[in-house]
Structure formats: C-alpha cells, structure tokens
C-alpha cells in the first residue's frame, strides 16, 4: 500500500514537472516567435514580394520605353511629311490661298465667277479653340456648263487644301427658254477648313 502511494506521488510529481516544462517551452517559443521569427519571416516575405513587383515594373518600363522608341522612329518618318498636313489644314484661315484655289479651278475649267462672298471669320480665337476644326465659308455665284462644273468640282476636291461644297443650287442661266450655250447659273457655298 505504501509503495502504491509512493508510486502515485512520484507519477503525479513527474506529470507536474512535465506540465511545467511544456508551459515554459510554449512560453519561450511564443516569445521567440514574436520577437525573432515573425520579424525575420515578415521581412523575407516582404522583400520577395518587392522583388517580384520590381520585376513586373521593370517589364512595364521596358515595354513603355520600346513603345516610345517605336513612336520616335515613326515620328522621324512622318516629320518630313508634316508640311502636307499644314497645307491641307493650315493654322490660319489663309483666305487668299482658298480664293486662289477656287479661282484657279474656275479658270482652268472655263467657269465664269460672277460673285464671290467670303463669310465672317473670327480672327481672335482662344488657344484652346485651336484644337477644333474651323471653317471659312465662301459663297460663289458662277456660270458654266454642267460638264465644266463637274470638272471644276473634281479639281476643287483634288486640291490639297481641304474644302467641301456645303450647298449647291443649279439653275438655267437665261431662265426656262435658255439655250444650251448659255450654260447654267451655279450658286454654291464652299467651306475651307483650318485649325
């Protein structure tokens, strides 16, 4: 009986000692995790993520730089042709050039210009308005045969300066009893564009 009690007491003491060891082990491990393992692992994971992000960013930068170089190459090709755009749609109204184009087309196609009216132009414009396309309107009253008018229209559209015939009225020049040779009375409005 005494032996049994002694054995039980020893086992109880041993169990108590084991619990104490476990408690100290866990407590020490918690401290170890909080103050040593966690900061180190945290830094390692953050650096790995940063490296991955930087590699992705590097790829984006390289792609962007390649794109810019590509645009520069294209711009070099296009640069020599930019005067064409400037002539097609100048920054100023250039009414004299527009009228010269119309007169030239009329002269080369035997069109008699009876009247030419230039519409209003706003010469004072704000800088931001230059992003939009502006138009000058030129009203023309002319006399010609239909074939000549067709040739005139074709030549007008073949000119480099962009133009559009917005309104067109064709009537017989001498009224209802006019002959073939008297031709047609043509009234039209031509818009010339500028920036």
């Amino acid at each position, binding site marked *: 009986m005494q032996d049994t009690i002694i054995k039980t007491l020893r086992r109880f003491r041993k169990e*108590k000692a084991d*619990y*104490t060891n*476990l*408690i100290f082990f*866990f*407590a020490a*491990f*918690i401290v170890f*995790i*909080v103050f040593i*393992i*966690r900061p180190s*692992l*945290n830094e390692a*994971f*953050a650096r*790995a*993520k*940063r490296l991955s*992000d*930087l590699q992705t*960013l590097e790829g*984006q*930068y390289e792609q*962007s730089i390649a*794109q*810019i170089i590509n*645009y520069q190459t*294209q711009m070099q*090709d*296009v640069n020599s*042709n930019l005067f*064409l*755009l400037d*002539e*097609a749609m100048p920054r100023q109204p250039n009414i004299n050039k527009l009228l010269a184009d119309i007169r030239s087309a009329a002269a080369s196609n035997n069109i008699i210009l009876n009247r030419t009216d230039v519409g209003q132009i706003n010469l004072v414009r704000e800088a931001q308005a230059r992003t939009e396309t502006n138009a000058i309107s030129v009203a023309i009253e002319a006399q010609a045969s239909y074939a000549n008018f067709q040739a005139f229209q074709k030549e007008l559209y*073949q*000119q*480099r300066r962009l133009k559009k015939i917005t309104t067109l009225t064709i009537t017989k020049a001498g009224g209802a009893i006019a002959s073939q040779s008297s031709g047609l009375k043509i009234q039209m409005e031509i818009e010339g564009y500028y920036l």
Partner: protein
Amino acid sequence: MNRKEVLFAVVGIFMTVIAWLVSDLIHAATSNQLEDIPVVQTVEQVTFNKDVFNDLRGRN
C-alpha cells in the same frame, strides 16, 4: 488555476500567435511593396495613317 489549465492557456496563446504570424506573412506577401516607386505612365496608342500623306502628296 492548476498547471494543466495554465498549460491549456499557454497553448491557446501559442496557437493565436501562430495564426497571427501566418496572417502577417500572407499580408506581407500580398500587399503592395512599391508605394514609393512611381507607376509607369502608359503611352497612348498613336498610329499614323501614311495613306493620308500619300493622298495629300498626290494633290496640288
């Protein structure tokens, strides 16, 4: 509170700390680490239609 209860409490704290550690690592591995680096500005797509130039060149 006997030692067994203390042990359960310590194990509970230990598990909580492990969970906190794991969540902290997941956060570190997924959060943006490049806040101080400027983001790449994307260049707008620019295309030049060379047919326009060819067409204009043919006009007078």
